[in-house]
């Protein structure tokens, strides 16, 4: 999918420029995209480092575990198919908490383990179970409290108030999570 899109973007864009006699623009774009990317990465790097540092403190002190325990009662309502006390609930809450605090990379291993654990409960091994899809919807909603990459990007472009987007982002992400879960329930009923 991404592969085809990439080819499409470059071939159509490139041909369009050449046909319109703007090969010089194409030339500049080819030569300059490396520097554009590097500028972006250099801007994202420091804030990411600070954030991962802070969050490692939260991990080591047990604050993240505490937060995970806090949300597990809600989770058993969202995942009615998972038996109480099953290991997958703990993994799911760790994944959500890690995402919540902007630790995308730390969240992925928890997410994968949670999926493996859900697979153990799954009766048809090649077909997605209801709980798996619910978990997936939660992840695709991108529930996060601090969008560090976007804040970095805003700083790079000299925003007067880089963190002004934080609260609106939280509001949007949580309402869309809520609606996403309702959509998931409706689908789950229809597919029964």
């Amino acid at each position, binding site marked *: 999918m991404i592969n085809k899109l990439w080819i499409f973007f470059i071939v159509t864009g490139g041909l369009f420029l050449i046909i319109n006699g703007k090969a010089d623009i194409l030339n500049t774009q080819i030569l300059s995209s490396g520097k554009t990317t590097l500028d972006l990465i250099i801007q994202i790097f420091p804030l990411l480092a600070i954030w991962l540092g802070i969050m490692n403190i939260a991990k*080591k*002190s047990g604050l993240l575990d505490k937060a995970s325990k806090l949300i597990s009662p809600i989770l058993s309502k969202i995942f009615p198919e998972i038996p109480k006390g099953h290991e997958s609930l703990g993994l799911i809450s760790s994944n959500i908490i890690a995402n919540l605090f902007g630790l995308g990379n730390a969240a992925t291993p928890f997410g994968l383990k949670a999926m493996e654990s859900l697979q153990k409960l799954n009766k048809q091994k090649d077909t997605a179970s209801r709980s798996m899809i619910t978990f*997936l919807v939660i992840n695709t909603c991108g529930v996060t409290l601090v969008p560090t990459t976007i804040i970095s990007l805003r700083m790079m472009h000299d925003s007067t108030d880089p963190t002004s987007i934080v609260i609106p982002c939280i509001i949007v992400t949580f309402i869309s999570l809520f609606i*996403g879960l309702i959509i998931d329930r409706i689908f789950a009923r229809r597919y029964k």
Partner: protein
Amino acid sequence: MKLLSNLFIPVLVLTVIIYGAKKKINVYDSFVEGAKESLPMILNMFPPLLAMIFGINIFTSSGIIDEIFQFLKPIFYLVNVPLEVLPIAVMRPLSGSFGLALLNDIYTLHGADHYLSILASIIQGSSDTTLYIITLYFGTIGIKKIKYALWAGLLADLVTVILSLIIVPLFF
């Protein structure tokens, strides 16, 4: 509300550090150790982001988007949706790097504090790469029939876009 946005991160950071101190862990070492993890992350981030910026810059600088979207314009103005955020709304579920590259594009064009930039930021910040997550998670455990997973995920993304269009004007 602006104050709340500005206080959010400082309060979170202080809470984490004070809690760490209370639990008597080595807060300093933990910070350094965590910050170290950013190096491999950044290194992994560079190649895909480069690929996306490379592709997107060629595509957007060609002016082809304007040609394609020209005829869509009246429809979008009718429902009060700024056309400029459409690419990011469409591409966000497909690739995170793609979305980020587009966001960078919008910032460069309009400035970071422009209404469109904020709208695009919130669309990017409030959702995730649905396609990647489905491929990664289901691929790893060998699920072949994903049932309604893609539709549910994409519909949730659409909800995010619609909500952003409703909520952002309330703030900015």
